């Protein structure tokens, strides 16, 4: 069986270093992963093709790249599935990171962000003789986050990072959650405070791309949301993100619907003139397109039902936390 792969190449040493597409035709077996095909190309067709790979079983985190436009591990992706209904399978380096050569991304920024969350256990007090005692289910829960192999697929496809390279990003934040969620770690308050600053947990727009991209089921976005809850519970509410969340909740609970104007005022504060002026262009554009929300909303007849829903959710959450 022949497969066609279109690979994005980049040679930094070329006279004019520019990315270009190169097409390879290669004989493959039905069970081949995209990585198998790339290795075969490298071994039989073109030794100059550079990529990282090692374990071939989705554990070392080397081979994250974009396949048909989405980040994933090449060693975990069946070639036949990617080829279905397409003239060629496209392969590009991971996004949101500079490319060193061909499919090799520069992970330096990735690691400096991981480093920024102080990713090591910070217990307090004297060490016990034996192991720390910790509830089995809490530890089992953490295994699901710890399973992150630091491949960078989530970072590659993060839509916030595309616009704001300073955002800590899904991988570093999931790593932070791994410590906040660890009963042995005693630095929760400091961690949550730091994470509540700019570029931290409140900058995620919940686009869900990282959840889709993650080859290990870590669901980074869900971890970021859990961090938000914890940060607010711990009292770190003096920031736009948590005020926005609180206001959102309060308004909807109160009247059964969202009131965008009140939301803005509550989030930024009525007296926060610069922020209000900053919002003015958005308001104007909305007005011109006829999308300005009304100043007075019609009351919703059955708003109490919404309030009841809120109560239920709150109780369920309390139970969960216990």
């Amino acid at each position, binding site marked *: 069986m022949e497969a066609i792969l279109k690979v994005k190449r980049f040679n930094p040493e070329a006279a004019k270093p520019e990315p270009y597409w190169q097409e390879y035709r290669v004989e493959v*077996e039905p069970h081949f992963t995209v990585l198998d095909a790339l290795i075969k190309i490298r071994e039989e067709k073109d030794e100059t093709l550079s990529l990282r790979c090692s374990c071939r079983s989705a554990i070392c985190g080397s081979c994250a790249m974009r396949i048909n436009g989405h980040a994933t591990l090449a060693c975990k992706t069946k070639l036949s599935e990617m080829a279905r209904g397409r003239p060629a399978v496209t392969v590009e380096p991971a996004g949101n990171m500079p490319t060193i050569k061909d499919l090799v991304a520069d992970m330096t920024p990735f690691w400096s962000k991981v480093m920024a969350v102080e990713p*090591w256990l910070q*217990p307090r007090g004297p060490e016990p003789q034996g192991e720390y005692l910790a509830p089995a289910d809490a530890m089992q829960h953490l295994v699901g986050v*710890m399973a992150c192999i630091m491949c960078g697929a989530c970072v590659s496809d993060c839509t916030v990072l595309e616009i704001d390279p300073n955002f800590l990003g899904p991988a570093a934040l999931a790593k932070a959650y791994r410590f906040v969620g660890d009963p042995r770690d005693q630095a929760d308050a400091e961690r949550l405070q730091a994470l509540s600053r700019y570029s931290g947990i409140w900058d995620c727009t919940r686009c869900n791309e990282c959840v889709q991209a993650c080859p290990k089921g870590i669901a980074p976005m869900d971890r970021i949301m859990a961090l938000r809850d914890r940060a607010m519970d711990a009292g770190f509410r003096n920031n736009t993100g948590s005020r926005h969340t609180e206001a959102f909740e309060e308004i909807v609970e109160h009247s059964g619907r969202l009131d965008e104007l009140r939301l803005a005022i509550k989030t930024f504060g009525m007296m926060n003139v610069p922020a209000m002026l900053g919002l003015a262009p958005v308001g104007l554009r909305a007005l011109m397109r006829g999308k300005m929300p009304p100043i007075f909303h019609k009351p919703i007849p059955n708003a109490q039902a919404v309030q009841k829903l809120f109560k239920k959710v709150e109780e369920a959450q309390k139970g969960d936390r216990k």
Partner: protein
Amino acid sequence: MLECDVLVIGAGLAGMRAALAAHTNGAKVIMVSKVHPVRSHSNAAQGGINAALTDRGDSWEDHAFDTVKGSDYLGDQDAIEVMCSEAGREIIQMEHWGVIFSRDEEGHLGTRTFGGQRRARTFFVADMTGQAILHVMYEQLMKSGVQSLEEWFVTDLIVADGECRGCVAMEIRSGTLQVIRAKTVVLATGGLGRVFEPSTNALICTGDGIALAYKAGVPLMDMEMVQFHPTTLKGSGVLITEGARAEGGYLLNKDGDRFMLKYAPSMKELASRDVVSRCEQTEINEGRGVDGCVLLDLRHLGEKTIKERLIQIYEIGRDLTGIDITKEPIPIRPGMHYQMGGIKTDVDGRAWDVKGQWGGIRNLFAAGECACVSVHGGNRLGANSLLDTVVFGRRSGEAASQMAKDMKPTEVSEEKWLKSSEDKLRSLLAREANGDSVAKIRWDLGTSMVEHLGVFREEEGMLATKAKVEDLKRRYEKVAVQDKGKMFNTALIFGIELGYMLDCAETVVLGAIERKESRGAHHRLDYPQRDDGNWMKHILVHETPEGPRLSYQPVTVTRWQPQERKY
């Protein structure tokens, strides 16, 4: 030129543990790794790590005995005692650093039973124990501030006047060479799995450190002892963890018989790896296999257990073979997995012998899979290798930093060493294409090694592979690397690695032909019995100007006299 007290080459578990120990001991440490540390092969360890904790009624002596027996009495018992008696302390250390070991109901660390052992003493994290420990070790390394050169490839050891004084390494990204000068050097470069094709090992396991030491004249020991793991996938050789059998998986032949009941009535599927691999191969050879494999059946464990405790295996089954292991048995067969032999060291990782019995090079230490202390002898027990990496990683880091304390900086001629390494690389790049390739030579090497140095061996086949390796070495002298660039030139790296692999292969073959008996993983059809009278000794290979030379070392026996091995 970069400078340090202790240079650690390799950033798997053994390397990082050594770097942390040396750093704690006050040394200036540089750690070099050809891949980012968390990409090291240690992350592939799925099953767990052994330790007998006395406070739960286990005894390290029991663990030591199981290890001695597992080694088929080729392991040095003094070294095994050190490893097993220090195991508990290492597990607790790692737990304190943050490893999320699985727990029991009371919140204590939980254990599972691994092959060849009579008690549940394998600590684990689902089926990703290696990854869990490796990432935590890297966390501690980030915290420590140890200088870590990531994606730097070591091309040469600097050896002068019988001393190791550092290395030459290439920053892969830029392709530039650098001399790193050190007072002491710890090699922790891992195994040589890729010398065999297929293998469970990652593509980076090319025996670099073993070959570098060998070429410097350091003796390698037990190189003929190569472990074949009972459960690997057919094409790729990818591993299905022993945890699958530890959780209760069955091995079936084509008639659906649990054949291990017949061969090892008491330990069944959990007999030692060498034993299970031979039973499987016998079933296959005698026509009771399925397409060159036997079947691993996990269905009776139930979906919940599988998805909670064998997540990776579930995924590997689904992604690499298209089999849902909760519904179907999965075909598996024995596959190359682990190199018991390696750079001969003492229990402090010294690659030279203070008594001058086995030679070696001063200031050079080794730990982990590239070293041979020897705690695994003829056959390694599952989950003893991670233990080996952390115990002897720490000990060699401590010893190397201790030694460095009393030393003045060594003398190294930067210019001379850079030039000799540059010349080596240039020659690989400058050759004319001749139709041959690095990949072809590697393939021919690996398949020949599996064919004649596999689960069953005999003289004739091994001699054929010996001749093959010699021929491949000649081809290697002429092969050209096609990528002529400097930056991230992976083709060049594969080219250098192939040279390392050929050197390693030579020593495996020589040791295997020499050992005229069957012991542990080394099973000869022409000498099917263990022969304690003649062969209860280690075989060492070292290079001389006249070519490789073999010598012997007695096995250290402290308290366990050899017995017949029954499971």
